[in-house]
């Protein structure tokens, strides 16, 4: 029982990170019907931005809660700016073209970011400084939760609540919902769709960057290609929950994270070795899509003839 609780805590920790990244995928897909393959790399950019901020501003040698907040917010702001720049210079020119073209542009963008970072920071992993003290708190029995895990839960829940507030209670959120419902009608109603799309990219990128900084507090090794697999799994999480659906992305992220750690912990009992860890997300995805093509919370859209 203790180990099960422990596995579940670890799974939900990773799951919260997946959820934060999945939110960006799902919002962009909801509005542009674009699989933004570069989004996983924004998560990496966020981690690096945090790393640079923390080391250059001296928070690394003098850890404090203030330093952490500055690093987190700074990394989110930098990533938001980069996300908007990507949208403006790469995606906007190809928006009207076919799906294949936009997809290849996104793949190209992903490669560009990865190899620019490999070029400037080299491929060797770096160690992210510990900005907050990391202690293990014993819950009951042998199950423990570390403060960095608590931090991940608290910050991601705060950000998700904030996102929910932005989308459902503010004017720009209303505009986002209108654009995702029908971009042309939204334009006719006087909504500046270009601005709304840019804002969506900024929002999604900021969340992914927060995920990057939080992960780096939990697992301090950062490298330029860290966004590939994490991004792919977060994307799977978004599709699993029903792409374009915001609560779905969170649910999908938590499910994938939990399933992954449970397979590592218990898979050997049912004949799945722990090396299948990375296949679990895809297997779940395929099963769900075949049984419920719109995802867990997605609504089935009827095709008009």
């Amino acid at each position: 029982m203790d180990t099960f609780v422990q596995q579940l805590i670890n799974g939900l920790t990773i799951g919260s990170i997946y959820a934060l990244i999945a939110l960006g995928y799902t919002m962009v897909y909801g509005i542009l019907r674009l699989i933004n393959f570069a989004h996983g790399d924004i998560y990496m950019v966020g981690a690096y931005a945090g790393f640079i901020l923390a080391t250059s501003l001296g928070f690394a040698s003098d850890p404090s809660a203030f330093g952490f907040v500055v690093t987190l917010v700074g990394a989110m702001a930098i990533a938001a700016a980069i996300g908007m720049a990507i949208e403006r210079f790469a995606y906007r020119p190809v928006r009207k073209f076919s799906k294949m073209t936009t997809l290849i542009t996104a793949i190209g963008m992903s490669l560009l970011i990865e190899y620019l970072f490999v070029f400037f920071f080299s491929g060797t992993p770096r160690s992210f400084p510990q900005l907050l003290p990391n202690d293990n708190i014993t819950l009951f029995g042998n199950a423990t939760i570390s403060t960095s895990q608590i931090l991940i839960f608290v910050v991601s829940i705060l950000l998700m609540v904030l996102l929910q507030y932005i989308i459902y209670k503010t004017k720009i959120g209303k505009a986002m919902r209108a654009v995702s419902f029908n971009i042309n009608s939204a334009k006719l109603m006087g909504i500046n769709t270009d601005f709304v799309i840019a804002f969506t990219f900024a929002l999604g990128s900021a969340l992914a960057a927060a995920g990057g900084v939080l992960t780096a507090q939990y697992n301090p090794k950062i490298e330029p290609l860290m966004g590939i697999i994490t991004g792919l799994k977060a994307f799977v999480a978004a599709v699993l929950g029903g792409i374009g659906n915001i609560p779905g992305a969170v649910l999908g992220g938590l499910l994938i994270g939990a399933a992954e750690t449970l397979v590592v912990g218990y898979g050997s009992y049912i004949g799945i070795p722990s090396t299948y860890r990375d296949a679990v997300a895809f297997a779940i995805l395929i099963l769900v899509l075949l049984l419920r093509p719109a995802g867990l919370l997605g609504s089935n859209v009827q095709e008009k003839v």
Partner: protein
Amino acid sequence: MSSWVKNLIVGIVIVAVLYVVNAMLSSSGFFGLGVDDYQGRLLAFIAINIILATSLNLINGFTGQFSIGHAGFMAVGAYSSAYFTVNYGKALESSFAFMGEIGAASVVLLIAIVIGALVAALAGLIVGIPSLRLKGDYLAIVTLGFAEIIRIVILNIDAVGGATGYQVPGYANFLWIGIFAVITVVVIHNIVKSDTGRALISIREDELAAEAMGVNTTRYKVTSFVIGSAFAGIAGVLFAHYNKFLSTNDFQFIRSFEIIIMIVIGGMGSMTGAILGAIVVTLLPEILRQLPGIQIGDSVFQVADLRLVIFALILILTMILRPQGILGTREFGLSWLKRPRKDSEGDEGDATDKGVPIAQQSEAKKMQSEEDKK
């Protein structure tokens, strides 16, 4: 001259040319006209990529089914045939020893190719039947997922080396790779020009309309997927037996993306486009690798270190400036020599306007352009 005689002659000429090129690739050279091993490898990889690109083009370009898991089927073909040659290759070679060393090796390779193609086709069938019910992005994600699962499963099979990689005997040479590249192009060209090909293209243009016209869309989609997978398997077999070493890292999803990039850069739904794309995508990083360094002060800045960044930039710029790819859906060939000049201009317009009364044509065009804006 009857057509099969013509085809036979063309075939013999192609094989002869490939034979000469192959001879030139050997270290001794062909009458002293050899090229070095590096260029030889590049040529072989171009030919393998042509097989991959044309076969994926059948699925993505002609049938319009968004598959981004082609490397998975390549891996299936590579590993299944490699398992065969590693375990039974030597024995088979000795039982075919009467055909000489080269003959026996060729027989083993051909059997390996049949095995690789069949196993990959089976994998294509197993993946295709459930997933082809999905459309667009969802199909893309599922094929990507299947390819990753295939890779991870192979990674966990110790009999084929697992994570340490797999040593494979080198039965394939450029001659065989070239011959199979030509066979792939011819077979897929013929499929596209056949009744089946028309059905596939009708599915790409409008699946609902195709179904209404009596095209069994599920059957044709699965057929196209299985044929594409089989050829990807063949590419895998050739890759395995040319490279002599297999690692699951060669079949990560970035490999699938590379194949997609080839067909999109060349032009979706164009045979020659896929071939051109395969050549460009294989050669471009190698050309960029040879860029000279720039002297800045005392240090030399190696531009070649930025080759992957430049590659990505070229990719993005191509999509922005020429979204339909280099050739679009057109074919590159010698037909423009025969055609009178004025025809080449209004080509596209004529094709779409056929069968529409003139009065409605402008109306249809207007709707089309509005459709495009969405």
